[in-house]
């Protein structure tokens, strides 16, 4: 299997979100960045394919400035073979999708893996757009993937359950929990990652379809009404009075 894994470079999940004073962007002071947690499920699944068959390759790609290189390096330490950085500010989903498609076109990847969403934009838009630009089938929110001969068997989450799908390759898959388990890079992986190739490509033309006007924090909660545990039953009345039960 020849896989391309598209990873986002996102604030660690414990980040207390703050925005800059002009509200235009995230205040990144003191923020650690990680591989998007959903993207990492796709990454590990791609690596498992290679381990299981002893064949194929895993390329990780991120659209971003040089600050994303440590994140790409971490993906190499987990087990990807090579990294690609498309040197551009990831302005919006459509721009990023166009960069990824322009890179992938003609390279004959069997799988293009994504996370189901980035945890900063939470847009779930890049994977579907790439699928459309490359005219490929798309399985979103996959929780399981295996091969049966040339057929990919996928489980796609839906309300209250999942669908079992059969797809040919190449196919675009967006991943979430269930498809693999996260891995912690070991010392050997980290050492080897230093010698693995990191290619930097310049971006192609692309105009944004949406731009950020401002970010703000949601209004804070007005405070918690405490109910004594002996009196727990009165909660029901309170909720019913508010029309919540």
């Amino acid at each position, binding site marked *: 299997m020849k896989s391309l894994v598209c990873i986002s470079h996102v*604030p660690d999940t414990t980040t207390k979100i703050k925005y800059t004073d002009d509200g235009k962007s995230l205040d990144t002071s003191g923020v650690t960045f990680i591989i998007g947690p959903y993207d990492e499920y796709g990454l590990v699944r791609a690596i498992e394919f290679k381990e299981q068959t002893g064949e194929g390759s895993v390329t990780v790609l991120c659209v971003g400035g040089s600050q994303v290189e440590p994140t790409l390096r971490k993906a190499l330490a987990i087990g990807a073979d090579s990294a690609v950085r498309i040197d551009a500010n990831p302005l919006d989903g459509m721009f990023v999708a166009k960069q990824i498609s322009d890179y992938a076109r003609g390279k004959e990847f069997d799988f293009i893996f994504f996370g189901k969403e980035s945890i900063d934009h939470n847009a779930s838009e890049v994977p579907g757009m790439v699928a*459309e630009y490359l005219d490929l089938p798309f399985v979103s*929110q996959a929780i399981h993937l295996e091969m049966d001969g040339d057929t990919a068997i996928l489980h796609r989450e839906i309300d209250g*359950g999942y669908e079992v799908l059969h797809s040919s390759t190449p196919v675009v898959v967006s991943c979430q929990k269930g498809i693999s388990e996260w891995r912690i890079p070991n010392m050997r992986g980290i050492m080897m990652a230093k010698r693995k190739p990191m290619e930097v490509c310049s971006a192609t033309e692309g105009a944004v379809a949406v731009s950020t006007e401002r970010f703000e924090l949601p209004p804070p909660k007005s405070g918690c009404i405490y109910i*004594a*545990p002996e009196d727990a039953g009165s*909660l029901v009345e309170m909720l019913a009075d508010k029309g919540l039960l």
Partner: protein
Amino acid sequence: MAVLVFAENSQGRIKKGALEAVSYAYAFAELLGEDLEAVVLGETDSNPSETLGRYGVKKVFHYDDADLNDFNDQLFTAIVADLVKEEEIPVIVMAQSYDGKALAPRLAARLDAALVSGAVQCPVKDDNGFTVRRSANSGKGIETVLTHRDTVIISVKKNSFGLNVNEADCEVEEVEYDIDMTSSIKIVERVQTTSKVSITEADIVISGGRGFKGPENWGILEEFAEAVGAGTACSKPVSDMDWRPHHEHVGQTGIQIAPNLYIAVGISGAIQHLAGVNSSKNIVVINKDPEAPFFKHADYGIIGDLFEVLPKINEAVRKHKASQA
């Protein structure tokens, strides 16, 4: 010219999530002074004008075809894109559902449209486009975006807008599609992992954490859920340890939900957990530790042992139901 809403057809029915998108689209159409039209793909149990007319749809394009009963992102994109071009539609609205997340981006790429996903408020017209508020940073922030294309697609975040009845005379136009496509994806099976209320659709969700000590103790939580028709959820460690199934895991890396009422029992309120539930309208926290971070995000809190508190609540629910009957 009209606003078009993709009214998602779930096995013959148009569900609440889709109707919320319809309500949103209605408000948007009012703002623009346009009519609201809907597209429905696949067979429906009843005439789609009955439900959709209640929420302000004037015209339904119904592709009443069994081949469209199952979602297929490529075919659905092609059909909706053709309709949008034919009818010169500038705005398309849909729910940010499982299918919506697969359809919206594909359609945006096909039509070179500006996609705003996870909208939480009706757009505002700006000299240069529309500004729309959307949820960002896993619910920890709100982003206002400006659109830069003539065609705009909006996916509406669940439970962010609500349902608004706006009776309209609704006509149905039965339409057929003329697209020859052999899909390389086949649905072989649809597995229902829960017969209960789906947590993304539910108005009330009750959720359990490690405080439950083990999988055998979930009876009191299920009793509550059953009594009030709530969905059941859990924290990540609980599903990691297989105390509860994966599809109940909510949070940053699980399912994101925004019910009217979220009841967290024996859950500490870690930031990754909050990221999946902080859009809930009302939050109740039951925890024996007064320092549990979840209380900072709660509307109602009970500091106490869940094994004593929850049975008391269940008892009160029984009485409440009996008094209503």
